[in-house]
């Protein structure tokens, strides 16, 4: 036991040092820092939003005489106003954060996991296997994202699960390509060669030797994919695919309010602004990550 203690402390200290270094470097890039904080804020809303929102997403706002209020402009009581269906837009935007974070988040995580495994294998083993799979992935990438999404949703029927499947189908090849090229750079490095000479298995070399090396590229790619996935999911919501009323999906909210912009523009502006803010923030965060890793020499 006493022998283990210093090692454990060292690991903790190393982690703390990495954290401190990360935030210090983020602080030198104020825009990226703001972006990251906003993303964290949205994640907080996704977790605790339903507890914080003043109303339920489908609750009708009524006056003292129990009459439904509609198209009420923003006020202190309803900071984002009330929509045509008597609902508090502020509460709906807060409730909607969960869907717009979790659905693209889960889909991105899955794409990144699959793409990483595929990219590592393609880059490390190479040869005919790499040629065939890479060309197949390239052909998938040549189809415009929204077209592929519409076809897939048309065939499989719109549901959250299908949307995840569509995002995975779209983004796995992209992640795989990025990781493959990073792996190609590392394949010939000395420590990989050493592991091979030690007689380590392919799986060990991929996940213990190469993966840590491609991790910076992977994190940046994951953040970028996340922002694209948010936009794609919001677009599908706007097109009315995958979500049903009275869902507080931001894309759907924009669609519902788009015919109403002359009467209740606030119902359009706030969910649209929320989508824009989240996507821009994730991009700023990704940009910050990229710069930090490049500064540390982990990225080309």
């Amino acid at each position: 036991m006493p022998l283990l203690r210093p090692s454990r402390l060292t690991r903790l200290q190393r982690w703390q040092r990495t954290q401190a270094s990360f935030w210090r470097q983020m602080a030198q890039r104020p825009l990226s820092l703001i972006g990251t904080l906003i993303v964290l804020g949205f994640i907080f809303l996704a977790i605790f939003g339903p507890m914080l929102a003043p109303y339920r997403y489908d609750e009708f706002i009524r006056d003292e005489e129990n009459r439904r209020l509609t198209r009420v402009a923003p006020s202190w009581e309803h900071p984002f106003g009330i929509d045509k269906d008597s609902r508090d837009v502020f509460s709906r935007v807060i409730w909607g954060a969960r869907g717009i974070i979790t659905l693209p988040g889960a889909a991105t995580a899955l794409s990144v996991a699959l793409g990483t495994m595929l990219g590592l294998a393609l880059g490390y083993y190479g040869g005919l296997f790499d040629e065939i799979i890479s060309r197949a992935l390239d052909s998938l990438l040549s189809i415009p994202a929204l077209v592929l999404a519409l076809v897939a949703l048309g065939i499989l029927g719109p549901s959250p699960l299908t949307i995840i499947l569509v995002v995975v189908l779209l983004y796995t090849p992209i992640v795989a390509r990025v990781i493959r090229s990073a792996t190609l750079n590392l394949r010939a490095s000395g420590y990989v060669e050493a592991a091979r000479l030690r007689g380590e298995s392919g799986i060990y070399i991929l996940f213990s030797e190469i993966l840590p090396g491609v991790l910076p590229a992977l994190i940046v790619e994951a953040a970028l994919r996340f922002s694209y996935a948010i936009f794609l999911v919001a677009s599908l919501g706007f097109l009315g695919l995958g979500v049903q009323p009275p869902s507080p999906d931001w894309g759907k909210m924009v669609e519902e309010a788009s015919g109403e912009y002359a009467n209740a523009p606030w119902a359009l502006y706030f969910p649209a602004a929320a989508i824009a803010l989240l996507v821009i923030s994730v991009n700023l965060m990704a940009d910050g990550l990229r710069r930090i890793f490049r500064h540390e020499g982990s990225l080309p």
Partner: protein
Amino acid sequence: MYLNEAHLNGRSGISRLMFTTAILLILFALSATGVTAQADAVLRVGLNEPQNLDPATGSNDPEILFNRTIYDYLIEINPDNSIVPALATEWEIADDGLTYTFALAEGATFHDGSPFTSADVVYTFNRLVELGSPALGLLGEFEISAPDEATVVFTLAQPNADFLYGVGNRHALILRDGTEEVNVVGDDYASFNGTGAFILTDYSPGESATFEANANYWGGAPALAGIEFIFFPDSQAQIDALLDGAVDFIFKLDVDQISALEGQDGITVLERATNQHPVIRIRSDEGALGEDSRVRQAFKLATNRPELLDIVQQGYGVLGNNDPIGPSYADFFTDVEGDDVHDPAAACALILEATGEERISSDFYVVDAFNYESLAVSLQQQWAEGCIDVNILLRPEGEYYASNEWLEVDLGITGWGDRPVPQGYLIEAYITGGIYNETHFSDAELDELVAQAAVTTDVAERAAIYAQIGAIFADRGPIIIPWFASVLGAANSSFEGLELHPFPGQTDFRTVSFAG
């Protein structure tokens, strides 16, 4: 003086700011001057482009409006659903209800100068039969003959109480006898040969159609000098064009769009009550959600119709009931007492009594049209108070109808357009085996009454039958009608005499004048 780079960059930001402000003020002043009409008496109509120009088969509003401008009917259905003479000045119905004799107007001529005679009427109606026109739904089976140039006689296979509505239906525009090519755009516009008040002088596909007033019109020359149809692909573009003064009249607007036009300077909002309505329908055959009439009644009790009309429809319409015989059928509409009671507690009690469960739940299919999504969202909350939980499934309009899903689901909302007579709805959707009986409702008493109404020509007797039908719907019917919608349009206030028709394509421009 001209603005060079030195001016823009060197003379500080203040002059640039003033320049920009001045431009913005000018633009604002221009936009604030309101809608302006052109000086002459040409009415510019903004609408979708008609696709099928044949009067016998072209069905939608722009198609009918286009043809109605050039051609005339034998008799006309007024916006209030009354029947008035047109190319037929009077008519007689034989006692057995099988023979209709029409006397024709004298002195009417086609645009090419040829006189209008009974041969033209015979040709037109036979052509409707030949082409299988939708007009046959109301006309039924008939034969037509012309004893002389000024008389036509229709002989029916069986009595048809709605036959006159068939004669005046929107497809029955009178064509010149023997016309082989009807409404074909060629080197000239000779094939657009009607007796109507306006003559087509130009047609540019995708852009516009131009008509000039027919100075020799048999009913007296119209007040307008001409009409121009300007084609727009969507209604928002039409609204923008009206606000910019580029068109003078638009129609078929959504309630959400019309409320943005209310109160605008120089714009008159036009509204006409119709029988167009959403049907909230509960499938009622064996094993279906509404098999037990108590469940169907629970849905009715849980529905707060005045709130739906007030909030979702923004008041543009008439409160609905439980049957499709709406207030626009002035002779036949009866307000069944207790038809629209809202009592969620009573709904819960009925649910418990009928099913033994505290609450019931169902998928709720909603066609994605008009404001039906908002209607569904409101119903979901109202019904929840009445112990009914629904899961809304919005369906694209084309897919929902084309796949016949609408005829199969347990619970849904369907849109039903305006019909000139109530019989159409009853025969299509509510009698046993009706072609569009989406609720699978089957009631022997109702079937019998609908058959009786079809052959009862006496209005009072028919009204009594429809009252009994209304009572059946209130007692055990499978539908809830939240409202009968108004058709909505808007016009430049400089024009007078514009009256929207319940079927907007039948709007009459002969009475319109430019007041300046």
